């Protein structure tokens, strides 16, 4: 299954577009941000692969000067009972990733959560509001530079 996925992806998108790795029998493919939507749609619609189920989508802060933020897509194929993981990395300045809500509807809240927690903006998202923190909150709590104890005074207390 792993070879099928990689062969199909390279034949569709060309050599050298992807970096793949494997750990504990889980295939991870790093995709350039501008192609993520096409790759996801291809993986979902190709009959042999049919990754029709987006199990999870989350962000990650690598805390590196280059390519600081990442978005991780955990896909599952109900037909083949197989999991793969896609990853996209973006720069700290202007972290924008195209949305995959057009491919899987479930990405909606996951992308809202990633925007809330990391400040990664999903281009084309229909309703990119914060999901956990208050809407007028200034910070993104899961970034590595956000302290564990929080920032005192960042959430105003209700008026008496």
């Amino acid at each position, binding site marked *: 299954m792993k070879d099928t996925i990689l062969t199909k992806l390279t034949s569709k998108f060309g050599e050298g577009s992807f970096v793949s790795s494997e750990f504990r029998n*889980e295939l991870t493919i790093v995709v350039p941000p501008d192609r993520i939507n096409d790759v996801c749609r291809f993986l979902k619609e190709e009959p042999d692969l049919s990754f029709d*189920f987006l*199990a999870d989508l989350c962000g990650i802060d690598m805390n590196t000067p280059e390519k600081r933020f990442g978005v991780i897509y955990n896909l599952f194929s*109900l037909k083949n009972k197989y999991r793969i993981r896609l990853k996209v990395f973006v720069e700290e300045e202007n972290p924008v990733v195209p949305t995959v809500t057009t491919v899987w509807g479930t990405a909606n809240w996951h992308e809202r959560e990633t925007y809330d927690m990391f400040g990664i903006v999903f281009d084309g998202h*229909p*309703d990119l509001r914060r*999901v*956990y923190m208050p809407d007028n909150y200034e910070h993104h709590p899961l970034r590595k530079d956000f302290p*564990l104890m929080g920032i005192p005074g960042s959430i105003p207390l209700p008026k008496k």
Partner: protein
Amino acid sequence: MATRTDDISRKSRILQALEDQHTSIAFDDPLENDLVLNMGPQHPATHGVLRLLIRLDGETVIGCVPEIGYLHRGYEKLAENCSYHEFIPHTDRLDYISPLSNNTAYVLAVEKLLGIDAPERAQYIRVLISELARISSHLMFLGSLAMDVGALTVWMYAFREREKLYDIFERLAGARFTTSYTRIGGLAQDMTPEVDAMVRKFIEEFPSKLRECEKLLQTNRIFLGRTDGIGAITKEQAIDLALTGPGLRACNVDFDLRKAVPYLVYDRLDFEVPVFEGGDSLARYYVRMEEMRQSTKIVRQVLDTMPSGDIHAFKPKKVLPRKERIYTKMEELIHDFMLINSGINPPVGEVYFSVEAPKGELGFYFYSDGTGQPWRMKIRSPSFVNLQSLTPMVVGSMVSDVVAIIGSLDPVMGEADK
């Protein structure tokens, strides 16, 4: 995004989201006005702090925007600052209706990251506790759904059975509610013959008690009228929204991680995955009732085939030693000191592991940088994802059915808000 909405208050943004879903609100004729109803976050029937903004045309729901985050405790941030062992008690507080399956899911994910396996006996006990947790969670569902549609007796019956399960958990783990029973590479303590007898007694009596509840509900015209055909979702919508657990199986999708990607010893056990058609509240109810029966069957097999032996993997640098040996043996004392102070230090890498929790697919994603604390941990909580399906379920139904649909979806906000 930031420029558009910096000055708009939170309240108006939620309303804006509600309005964006459909056409604009008309105010010309008073009788044709849409009404915006705010339900929750403090509402007894929303099963915790779930807030719904509902747009009504008369009594019909024409728009619904769920708003969550009132119980957000930042567990993912906390996990990045705890060792892997320290996070186990926090998993109790995710889906607090079935803490034992969260404990199991978490340690299985960490074990996958480490590349170790718990001994056979520990795996059997983990199956046993996962299934007992499933029964406990579905009983909660049964009671609350019945109460949401006005049948109070069933709630009492369901809680009577849950009480027996809590007695078992207390004997097994030492706590009724916050069990924290599993450990990386094993369990906190072994199952005693007394617990074995208690579980056998429970599963012997349970099917007849379940039948009692069924008799009260399944021939009840009010219950059927409030659930049959209400809150339906199609198979395609459910897969698109990644609905998992009983909600998906009620849409005639045969997907259960225990069968699809077998973990623990589920591949050796004989059980069926109940699948129903319709995708409505009644189908979700039938799936859960049948799952409780199947869980009883699994528990019986586990008790009969459970091997004896150790419950801790022999990996001294990864698995916490037993307390009595820490006090008497030098090696164990050193290992305990190192494990508590520097942690288990898994190799650099990333894993995603998920189990079939009572509510659906509960997954943990770990990104390890080789230190004692995870660099990133993501909880894929079933309630968070399942709540997205609430909007297509309630749109088109009556306002009084919203409560019953939430009950049939069975979200737990501790898990949805993390």
